[in-house]
């Protein structure tokens, strides 16, 4: 049972390190360009100044992006501190979607979510909720076509919060990618009484409240 959550964490770490490598590559090339321009000189030519300024601005902007991205990853890591915690659904979705942006961009699928402002906080495992959301997103992305959308909504029911993940677009019917079986995912979600139901283009996750 543990293999699916481990695969999920592995996926997030792999995408995170890939993205950070890209950030570092830009910082390295920008600082390298400044070094190339200034090396062995006491002063730089006027025409080279825009390149230096542009590079410094690129470094500053990239560091800012990297810090934000690392903060999302750090928050994701702390979601595993305790099996149960009180959390805001909006924040766990925002965090997960930021970390999955590279994956969805590569598939040209837009990840959207819009949750009502009056949703109560959840007392459950934020990690397992993210795992369920990841399963839903991943299972659609593996069969998605470009320029499509995944929409996440949530409603408060009598004894639960219901999250729906709806795929809008055509599905690739003969996807060769390996999918997780719903029962193996349900087995993990059952640890904190989360339920999942799966249709062709919609997955519903129910979190007890």
């Amino acid at each position, binding site marked *: 049972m543990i293999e699916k959550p481990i695969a999920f964490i592995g996926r997030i770490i792999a995408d995170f390190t890939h993205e950070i490598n890209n950030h570092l590559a830009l910082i*390295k090339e920008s600082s390298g360009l400044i070094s190339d321009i200034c090396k062995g000189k006491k002063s730089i030519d006027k025409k080279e100044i825009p390149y230096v300024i542009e590079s410094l601005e690129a470094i500053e902007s990239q560091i800012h992006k990297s810090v934000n991205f690392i903060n999302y990853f750090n928050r994701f890591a702390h979601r595993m501190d305790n099996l149960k915690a009180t959390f805001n659904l909006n924040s766990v979705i925002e965090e997960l979607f930021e970390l999955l942006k590279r994956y969805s961009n590569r598939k040209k699928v837009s990840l959207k979510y819009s949750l009502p402002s009056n949703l109560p906080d959840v007392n459950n495992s934020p990690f397992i909720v993210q795992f369920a959301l990841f399963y839903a997103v991943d299972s659609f992305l593996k069969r998605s076509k470009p320029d499509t959308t995944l929409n996440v909504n949530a409603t408060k029911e009598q004894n639960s919060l219901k999250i729906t993940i709806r795929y809008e677009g055509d599905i690739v019917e003969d996807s060769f990618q390996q999918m997780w079986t719903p029962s193996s995912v349900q087995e993990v979600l059952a640890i904190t009484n989360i339920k999942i139901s799966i249709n062709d283009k919609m997955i519903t996750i129910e979190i007890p409240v």
Partner: protein
Amino acid sequence: MKKTKILIIDDESELVSALTERLTLRGYNTFGVTNFADGLKFLNKIPDVVILDIGLPDMDGLEVLKKIKEINSSIQVIMLSGYGDDEKVNKSLNYGAFDYLIKPVDIEELVSKIETAKLKKEEAEK
């Protein structure tokens, strides 16, 4: 002496801009684009070496590699990526990539690869 023509295709525009400038400062005739559609225009000029990001927005880098080789098999392609998985490395080499570098790359290592790739292109054209 004719300058070596280099085409950089990477979706990170600021990275393309800095790398283009750094290679230009080293005496290369360098062009940079952020997608394959723009890259196609420069491929008609037959660059000696293409530095190609594996994860482009409009087409998978491995597919782009195949297209480049269809256009002119002597063009040498150095794959550039944040990925480090063996499968992608092997696939790109099987599709005819000259070499594969993981970002962030060392500029001198890249220059050294470009020089060897250029020699290979000259050999292929003899």
